């Protein structure tokens, strides 16, 4: 690695416009990147990571401005440079890889046409040379069919492949710097590994400097030489990756590291013969004529948490829809307390409906924005329990206290006045208001930052102990499973591939697919990816491993 400095940002202040005023996003951050160095930029949502990353390219989105400071790229001052000078740098010497490749590729053009656009427009290569080079890059990124894949449209290619095509596109002019903005956040764990490995290889091979933006510590540990931690627009600390992981100096960094230590002890095995609270028996389901679930069966017992894990499209949420009766199954039945439920929710009695409640992934959209918190929680209290007036108010207050929000402060607020974690707590209170036995938690923490998510998990665990609730916990995050589950059900392509107590699931031998899922979860160890790839054999990652099963 040369010691030559590529990017020099000094005392950079960024502001965003909302309601006619400029609010600070980044407060005087310095950033230095040497040639060929990879810097990890980490922080929770709202920390200003993406804004800072884009500012390193001399670019700000509409409604954002750089109010103070300097940004230099290879000695060129990007803040005073003309638009033409910046255009000459962008794409050619500085490239960008966005979070959602599906949204960032133009749907109207073939991948290859978008790939060659940079080199041709910047006069780096002819169209045919660039096409050949593109195929070579696709091959290096281990894309299937590297000679043909470029001649497809973006919607014809899967998410993980698109993300690699976008990395290839960023490489098309052999830039000195690439900004990776959460490139694997939208992907499943097994797909994430392929993309991580590809990105790391190609960045090393061409000695490209990179700024890698993510909220996932374990991911950044694999990719970065240096890590910079941001909190609400301020720099917390910067250190090289190994030092940062082994000896963080700041409290905030330590707290980030500590999150993954929350783990509930495994509960003792269920007594044989006890009636499960909810039993899913041989359920088949389909959307229209497309079958999605095949012979799904599992039981959930009182006071326990069953985690249903699997990649997107594996049928986790569909199973939940069958249990609630939103999607009547084609075959099989749902039992609650040993009693067969009518398949369609419209045929269920009020008391049967009360037993099964849901908490949703996006608290933002699951709460009526025009109703106050009090009204939102009071509605099921009145509907299911028939309480009115002062009694109703008392019950709502008690529920708010249960979710650790001060009733007098929150009763009259609107959802928009709450933070993401608080909104999710309201979602929990609303489910509790019906006094159910069983709650389906559908990815309830995946939209939240790690610290906030941990708070929600602790709250759910406490409520379970107090009220002996049964949870069905739908998630794709195995760290969450480890933290909260008693039993685990692994789903793939609409089938249950393995189920059992958590301790059993996390100790080998596993089903091949469970093994792939488990080993794909990034670990804090900076050598994890290297070791894993060596173990699997480099050509044997992701797609290949799945195909073998």
């Amino acid at each position, binding site marked *: 690695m040369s010691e030559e400095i590529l990017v020099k940002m000094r005392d950079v202040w960024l502001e965003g416009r909302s309601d006619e005023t400029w609010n600070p996003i980044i407060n005087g951050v310095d950033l230095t990147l040497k040639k060929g160095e990879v810097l990890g930029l980490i922080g929770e949502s709202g920390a200003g990571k993406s804004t800072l990353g884009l500012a390193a*390219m001399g*670019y700000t*989105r*509409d409604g954002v401005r750089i109010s103070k400071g300097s940004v230099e790229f290879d000695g060129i001052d990007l803040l005073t440079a003309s638009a033409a000078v*910046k*255009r*000459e*740098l*962008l*794409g*050619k010497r500085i*490239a*960008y890889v*966005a979070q*959602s490749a599906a*949204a*960032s*590729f*133009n*749907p*109207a*053009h073939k991948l290859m046409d978008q790939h060659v*656009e*940079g080199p041709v*427009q*910047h006069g780096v290569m002819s169209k045919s040379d660039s096409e050949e080079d593109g195929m070579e890059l696709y091959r290096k990124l281990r894309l299937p069919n590297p000679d043909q894949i470029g001649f*497809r*449209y973006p*919607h*014809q290619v899967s998410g993980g492949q698109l993300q690699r095509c976008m990395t290839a596109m960023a490489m098309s002019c052999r830039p000195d710097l690439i900004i990776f903005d959460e490139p694997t956040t939208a992907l499943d764990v097994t797909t994430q590994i392929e993309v991580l490995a590809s990105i790391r290889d190609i960045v090393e091979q061409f000695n490209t400097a990179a700024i890698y933006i993510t909220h996932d510590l374990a991911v950044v540990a694999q990719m970065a030489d240096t890590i910079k931690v941001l909190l609400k627009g301020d720099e917390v600390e910067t250190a090289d990756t190994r030092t940062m992981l082994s000896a963080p100096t700041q409290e905030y960094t330590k707290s980030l590291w500590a999150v993954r230590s929350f783990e509930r002890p495994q509960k003792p095995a269920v007594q044989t013969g006890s009636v499960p609270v909810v039993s899913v028996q041989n359920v088949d389901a389909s959307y229209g004529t497309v079958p999605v679930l095949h012979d799904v069966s599992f039981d959930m017992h009182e006071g326990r948490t069953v985690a249903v894990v699997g990649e997107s499209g594996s049928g986790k949420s569909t199973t939940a829809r069958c249990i609630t009766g939103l999607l009547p199954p084609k075959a099989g039945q749902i039992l609650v307390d040993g009693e067969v439920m009518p398949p369609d929710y419209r045929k269920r009695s009020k008391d049967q409906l009360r037993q099964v409640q849901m908490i949703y992934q996006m608290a933002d959209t699951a709460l009526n924005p025009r109703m106050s918190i009090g009204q939102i929680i009071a509605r099921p209290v009145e509907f299911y329990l028939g309480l009115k007036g002062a009694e109703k108010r008392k019950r709502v207050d008690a529920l708010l206290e249960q979710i650790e929000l001060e009733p007098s402060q929150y009763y009259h607020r609107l959802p928009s006045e709450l933070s993401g974690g608080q909104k999710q707590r309201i979602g929990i209170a609303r489910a509790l208001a019906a006094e159910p036995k069983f709650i389906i938690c559908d990815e309830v923490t995946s939209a939240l930052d790690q610290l906030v998510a941990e708070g929600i998990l602790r709250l759910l665990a406490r409520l379970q102990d107090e009220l002996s609730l049964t949870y069905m916990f739908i998630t794709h995050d195995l760290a969450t499973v480890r933290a909260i589950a008693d039993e685990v059900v692994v789903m793939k392509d609409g089938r249950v591939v393995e189920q059992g107590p958590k301790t059993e699931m996390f100790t080998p031998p596993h089903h091949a697919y469970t093994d792939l899922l488990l080993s794909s979860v990034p670990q804090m160890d900076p050598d994890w990816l290297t070791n894993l790839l060596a173990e699997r054999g480099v050509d044997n990652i992701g797609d290949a491993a799945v195909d073998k099963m």
Partner: protein
Amino acid sequence: MGNVLTIILQRLTLGLLTLLIVSIVIFVAVNLLPGDFAQSILGQGATPEAVASIREDLGLDQPMVTRYFDWLGGVLRGDLGTSFAQANFASFTGTDSGATTVAQQIAPRFANTMFLAMITAIIAVPFSIFLGVLAALYRNTVFDRATNIFTLSSISSPEFFLAYILILFLAVLNPIFPSLSNIFEGMPFGERVEKSMLPALTLTLVVTAHMMRMTRAAIINLLASPYIEMARLKGLSPMRVIVKHALPNALAPIINVIALNLAYLITGVVVVEVVFVYPGIGQLFVDSVKIRDIPVVQACCLIFATAFILLNLTADIMSILSNPRLRHPK
């Protein structure tokens, strides 16, 4: 592609069904017009016997349902009927042109209208899209505002006013184009174009605003999307970002507005025709309504409806085809 073909067939069937319903509406509406041909021909002093005999001659004494099916059957065989005015009473109206069937009467007029619509479209569509792209590129600048003010004021002014202004500037003060567009059969093409220029320019002013503003809005709507940001971050010129990356994805709404305006050019230009004495179908239509020449009125309405439905159908199909997801399924 099978997918797209199914959609197109569905739309065609729906279009035919719409046309059938429209034919009923036209027939009923035209028959609800107060007065009838016999009365309007014979005038105030007509004896009831004379009126009854003409009505009988023309079949107006038959019940409405019978007349509708007679008419519909004729239309399906390609026979639009015989003009009342031209059939037996040409001497009354003084408009004997030797053409007796409705088709013979309408054909040359319709051809003229299509000619004018075509010339206008050739000028107006590229002009509007070009202006729209420029307005999106230089949005919120003086150019953008000037374009908006210009197109909005021309659409807000009455057509005859625009026509007279153009005549004043382009025919009277600077005699570039003739102010009368009395084209006739057998006129050489070049002269036809020259004579049609002023009405075409007037109509261009009328239809530009819609198309230009939709182009601008559809493009600006896309500018916040991630793939536009990506195009910018690839260092492409602003013009390329808009033309190559935004425009192809903004086509669907633009195509629909173009179709609506083209339909207007065929069906709604009677005022401009009158001002420039242009022998189009609009004038014929209005004249026929005046003398209750029902077969001609019905045929004109049916042609207007067909034009409207066909253009909207084309627009629908083209918007569908502009979506790569449908053109290239997985």
